[in-house]
C-alpha cells in the first residue's frame, strides 16, 4: 500500500553528460542557473542566492503573457558535488506560499552524473504532476547545456 506521503513525492532521475562538480555548479551558481533552470517558454527575470546552510534563495520567473511568479527557499544541506537540500516555495499571488523540500543528489557515473531529484511535501497530486512537467522541461535544458558543451 502506498501512503499519501509517497504519492505526493516527486522523484526524477537523469544522466547528465558532465561530472558531478560541474552539475552541482550548474545548480548553485546564478549565472549557470539562469541558463537552464526555467522551464520551456518561461524566462528568469531576476533572483539571488546565498549558498550556505540557512541562506536564502529566490527567483522571479516570467511567463510569455507577462505574468510573474516568485519562488524562494532556504538551503538546508550543502555537500559540494554530492548533495543539496533546500526548501522551495511559491508566492501564489493569493497570499499562500506552499512549501516543498528538494533533495538533489549528484552521483558520478563514469564521466557523467546521475542526477536524482526528490521533492516532498506537495499539497496535491496536481501540484506534484505540474512540478514533474516543469522539472522535466528544466532538466531537458540542463541536459542540452552540457551536451552542447561536450560536443
Amino acid at each position, binding site marked *: 500500500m502506498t501512503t499519501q506521503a509517497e504519492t505526493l513525492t516527486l522523484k*526524477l532521475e*537523469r544522466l547528465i553528460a558532465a561530472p558531478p562538480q560541474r552539475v552541482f555548479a550548474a545548480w548553485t551558481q546564478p549565472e549557470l542557473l539562469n541558463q537552464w533552470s526555467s*522551464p*520551456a*517558454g*518561461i524566462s528568469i527575470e531576476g533572483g539571488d542566492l546565498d549558498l550556505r546552510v540557512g541562506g536564502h534563495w529566490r527567483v522571479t*520567473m516570467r*511567463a*510569455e503573457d507577462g505574468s510573474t*511568479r516568485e519562488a524562494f527557499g532556504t538551503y538546508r544541506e550543502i555537500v559540494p558535488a554530492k548533495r543539496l537540500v533546500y526548501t522551495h516555495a*511559491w508566492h*501564489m499571488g493569493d497570499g499562500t506560499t506552499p512549501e516543498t523540500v528538494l533533495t538533489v543528489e549528484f552521483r558520478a557515473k563514469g564521466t557523467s552524473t546521475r542526477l536524482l531529484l526528490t521533492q516532498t511535501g506537495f499539497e496535491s*497530486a*496536481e*501540484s506534484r*504532476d*505540474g*512540478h*514533474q*512537467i*516543469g*522539472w*522535466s*522541461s528544466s*532538466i*531537458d535544458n540542463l541536459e542540452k547545456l552540457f551536451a552542447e558543451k561536450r560536443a
Partner: protein
Amino acid sequence: MVTSARTKALDHVFGALADPTRRAILARLTHGEATVGELAEPFAMSRPAISKHLDVLERAGLLHRVPDGRVNRCRFDGAPLRGAHELMEDYRGFWDDQMDKLAGLFEKERKR
C-alpha cells in the same frame, strides 16, 4: 500496406514517449483530463511550449483534445500503447533468458 501503417504508428508512439517532459504530461493526464492552461500551471511551462508537446502526443494518438465550452480538455488514450507493448513482449523472452543465465551464474558461484 498494413505493416507500414503499423510501423508508422509505432514510430509516432515511441517518438512521443522518447521525451521526459511528454512522459510527465502523460503521467499527469492518466490522473484525469486537463486543459492546456491547467497543464501550464504553476509556471510548469508556457502554453505554446506545452502545446508543441501536446501536438506530438496527439499525432501518436495518445491524447485527444475534447472541446469543452471555449477550451479544449486533453484526454489520455492508452490504446496506441498496445502496439508498443506487443513489440516489447517480443523481447521479453530474451530478457527472461538473460536473467535465468545470471541466476544460474550466481548459483554456481555460491556452490563453489
